[in-house]
Every structure is written in C-alpha cells, then in structure tokens.
C-alpha cells in the first residue's frame, strides 16, 4: 500500500492525503519503540484537518514529544505511517521540513546570537535571503514583541522571551503546519496568555497548529479538537465540548477524611442516578445524573455507615474528569483547571 497516493481510503478510515485535500496531518498505527525496549508511542491513529488547532494532552512521558518528533521527521517511526501536509514523513522528509514550523519543548536557541541574527539565519536556512530576510526578521520580532530586545544575545532573554523568539523562528517561512511541543511549560501565567494569543493569531492566518500540552486549561482554551495520550496510546479524542459532554451529567467529589475509600465506595454503591465511581487521592469522584439532588442521599448514606466525609462539591465535568475517566487518574501538576474553576466558567 503506497502512502503518497491521492486516494481516500474509506475502508480503513484513514485519509491518505494530497496537497489539495484538507487533511494536514494523518497518522496510522504510528509506533516508536526505543532501543532499550521502551514503547513510547503505541500504534496511534490520528487525523488533523487543515486549519485546526489540534491538541495532544497528556502527562510527562505519555509519548507526546516522541509523536511530535516523528511527525517532524526528527525520529523515524518503528512502524506505521504518517503524512504531514500530504507528504509521507519518512519518504518525503525534506519536503515535509519545508512545509512545517517547529518549536520543540527544549527551546532551540543559540545563546551566542542576538534575536535578530538568529531569525535572519533561520530565514537563510529557509531560502529567504538579503533584504527579504531582514524585513521578515524585523516583522516577526515586532509580531512577538521583541523588537526592543532584538539586538541582545538570546542568553539574556527571560523564559517567556525565549519561547516567543523560538515561536517566531518557527514562522519565518509561513509554514502550513506548525508543531508546538509544550509551548507554555515553565512559563508564568502572563507569558502563557501571550503565547496563546500568538497561537490564535497564527491559526487565524491559516496555519494548522498541532500542540502538545500537559495543561488542561490550555487544551480547553486553545484547541478545536484534542486527543488524550497516555502511556503511548490515544485514549480519548474529540472537541473539548464533545469530550466533556460524553462524560454526561454531574460530578460529585467526596473528600474522605481518614475513612477507608473502599468502605466509602461500598456505602455509596447503588446511589440513585450513579453512573460511575472513580477513586482518586483522598476521595471519590461520583458521576451522577443530578449532582445537587444526590447530596442529601450521599450524606445520609455516609452517616448511616459512620463515615466522616470532608468536603462534598458538585461540578460539571471538566477535561480533568475526561482525563480521569480515560486514564484512571488525574493529570498531575494542574494549576487552574479544577472543577470549581470549571463551575465558575460555565
């Protein structure tokens, strides 16, 4: 089966792309096993339409970076196939590189060069020379708000400035597809918002954006669609709204103070309208039809079995709940995407 044909293969659900169609990224059974036997990415399938902001959400070590490196031609897949901008990443690597912009998790800046020198060099590497390179560099420096710092060496830049310059350097050739690997990790909230604005602007300009993140809020705010990756596998995929809607109903969080979680779970089993119970650190998440209406019954049952509950709260499902259902645990290190915040939003 050749990969770079322009046919649409509906039988296996895999879109084989051409430059003319609307698929920006497609992967089928993409796998990467490292020499030490670690299966970083296990047979993932995904399709990203042109013009989308597609998010890859997962904890550290889930396989996000390995996937990005395969799609960017930096790492060959062990098996499976992928196309970017309609081109096979293995067979047409050079052409893929011409079409994509990449800002990897490790900020790729040369500390000895100034921001302007770095962008002008980057232009040169993409075949933009002379005055055109100088203009493009100046334009991008202005776009990411670094005009004043343009002639300082990048080693003097703050983390946020480095990220913005790295982002600018991925844009010199106006790529069709932009890969951003954890573009806001380690940034303060203000810098994060700036990067979000940049991503929205780049996307509005027509570029497809594939971004990885471990921040639920980022996925929720930025992405048209997202996939949750855990342990090298895609465990959920859809728009943030779809994913949350699939969770159904309300989530009641019960914090258990010193009581046995198993006993609490037993006490609450058979609760009217209960769909699912998920144990989490220090308590339980109950997925119920009517959250508010269930509280009285929950309290009654806990008192009946002499179980001391701490806090009981009700919320609409968040992406964190989606993550919890898909992976059996919460995404660690979250800052501001708990359910309470979700209630405020909705």
């Amino acid at each position, binding site marked *: 089966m050749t990969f770079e044909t322009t046919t649409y293969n509906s039988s296996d659900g895999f879109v084989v792309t051409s430059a003319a169609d609307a698929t920006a990224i497609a992967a089928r059974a993409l796998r990467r096993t490292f020499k030490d036997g670690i299966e970083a990415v296990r047979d993932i399938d995904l399709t990203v339409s042109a013009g989308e902001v597609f998010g890859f959400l997962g904890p550290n070590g889930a396989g996000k970076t390995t996937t990005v490196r395969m799609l*960017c*031609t*930096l*790492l*060959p897949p062990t098996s499976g196939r992928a196309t970017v901008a309609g081109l096979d990443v293995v067979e047409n690597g*050079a052409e893929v*590189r*011409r079409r*994509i912009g*990449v800002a*990897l998790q*490790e*900020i*790729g*800046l*040369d*500390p*000895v*060069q100034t921001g302007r*020198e770095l962008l002008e*060099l*980057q232009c*040169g*590497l*993409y*075949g933009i*020379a002379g005055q055109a390179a100088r203009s493009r560099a100046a334009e991008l420096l202005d776009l990411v708000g670094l005009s004043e710092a343009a002639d300082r*060496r990048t080693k003097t830049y703050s983390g946020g400035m480095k990220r913005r310059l790295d982002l600018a*350097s991925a844009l010199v050739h106006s790529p069709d597809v932009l890969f951003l690997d954890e573009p806001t990790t380690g940034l303060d909230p203000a810098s994060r918002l700036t990067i979000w604005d940049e991503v929205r602007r780049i996307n509005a300009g027509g570029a497809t954006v594939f971004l990885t993140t471990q921040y639920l809020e980022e996925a929720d705010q930025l992405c048209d669609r997202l996939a949750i990756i855990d342990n090298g596998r895609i465990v959920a995929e859809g728009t943030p709204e779809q994913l949350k809607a699939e969770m159904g109903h309300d989530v009641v969080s019960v914090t258990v103070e010193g009581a046995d979680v198993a006993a609490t779970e037993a006490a609450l089993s058979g609760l009217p309208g209960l769909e699912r119970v998920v144990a989490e650190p220090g308590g339980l998440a109950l997925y119920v039809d009517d959250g508010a209406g269930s509280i009285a019954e929950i309290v009654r049952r806990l008192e009946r079995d002499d179980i001391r509950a701490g806090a009981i709260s009700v919320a609409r499902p968040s992406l964190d709940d989606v993550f919890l259902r898909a992976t059996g645990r919460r995404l660690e290190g979250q800052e501001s995407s708990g359910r309470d915040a979700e209630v405020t939003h909705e």
Partner: protein
Amino acid sequence: MSEVLLLGRRATREIVRYPEATIPTLFIPLFFLVVNIGQVSKTFPSSTPFLNGQGYVAFQLPVSLMFAVATATSGLALVTEIDLGYFDKLLVAPIRRSSIIFGRLTADLVRGVASSTLVLLVGIALGARIETGIAGALVIVALAAGFGVAYAGFGLLVALKTRNVQATQSSFLLFFPLLFLTPNFVPFNRLSPLMETLARINPVSYVIVGMRGLIIDGWNFGQIAVAVLVIVGLGAILTGLSLRVIATYDR
C-alpha cells in the same frame, strides 16, 4: 553552499564572541614554545646540525602550531548545541545535514588561519626565521589551518557519537600521544629505535616535518606533498565519518 556559508558565519561569530574558548587553546602552545626553548636552547645551540644555523625556536615552532590548531572547540560547540536543542532546530530545517558539519569546519578554517598566524608571529618574534620567506609562511599557515580543519572532524565525530560534553572535551587529550610520538624534540634519526619506528608510522610526524622544512631548510616539495596528503587523508576519514554519523543521527 549558501547554507554552509550561513552556518559558517554563525560559527565564526561564536569564536569572536567567546574568546574564552579560544584563548586557552593558544596559551598552551605558546607556553610550551617558550618553556621548551628555555629548557633546551643550551643543549641545542644554533651550531646543532639539524638547526641549520637557527635557534631551537625554529625547530619547535611547528609543534606549537599543531597544538594551536588541533582543538576540540568545534566538537564542543556542536555537543553544546545538541544539549541546548538548537541542533534539533537545524535538523528540522530544510537543509542538508552535511551543511551543519561543513559550517563548523568553515569556522575551524578561520580559527586555524588566525591561530597559526599568531603563533607563527610569536615564533618569529622569538627569533625564528622562515627560510622560505613570506610564501613559505603562507604555506605553513595553510598547512596548519588545514590540519586544524582535518582534526576538528574528530571532535565533531565524538560529539555526534557520544552527545556528551565531557567526552567531547576530553577527546582532545587523545591528540597528545599523536603529537609526542613524532620527531617533536629532535629529528627522526636522533630518536631511540622504538620511538623512531613509532614516529615514522605516525602520520602527524609528516605534517610537522613538512612545516619544519619550510622554516629551517627551504623548499622541499616532496615533504610538502606528503604533509598535504596526510592532512587530506585525515580530513577525508574524520569528516567522512562525521558526515555518516550525522546522516544517520536518530535514523
């Protein structure tokens, strides 16, 4: 080609902006030059036959030139780049991977010319006389810089293979035996039989002999040709291996 020039210009800028990376590589050869001359100038007065009427500085100068140009600086710059992630940025750009290697070697050529010119001028200031004149001096600088470029391939190879800063840094130490198993203090025929055998099979010896001939004895095109052959051979092997490793890097 323009990619090589762009990357070469960047690497050269790095040399100018990081003088602390180059100064130690010049300090060592100049230090050895002064100390060695000081220690043995009475043992080898200018009447010594192999000095052809010159001071010992003329005999030692090629060794210092070799020390000045044989550095792991490019390898270190590359491994630092790998460490920082900029190397990935270059790999994902639509350029030939070989340009990354040739860009680094371009800077080695510039550094080699500058360093060997400086060491040569210090040697002249200390009393050495270039028997072959300015033309000979230019050939000496070309040979030294060429050797620097050829040798740089070793640092690049270690950087790409190990991706480890410490390993790349200490790779420079491997050059010491190569430089000392040569007629560095006395000619071949004054070495012990074992040392002479080792020195004669060490290709680095012939680069030293070629440069030394130009300083002390005059034009000897046979010696120069052998030196060029060694440099080109060494460069072809080390650069060729680096190109192969970078072509298959993470592939």
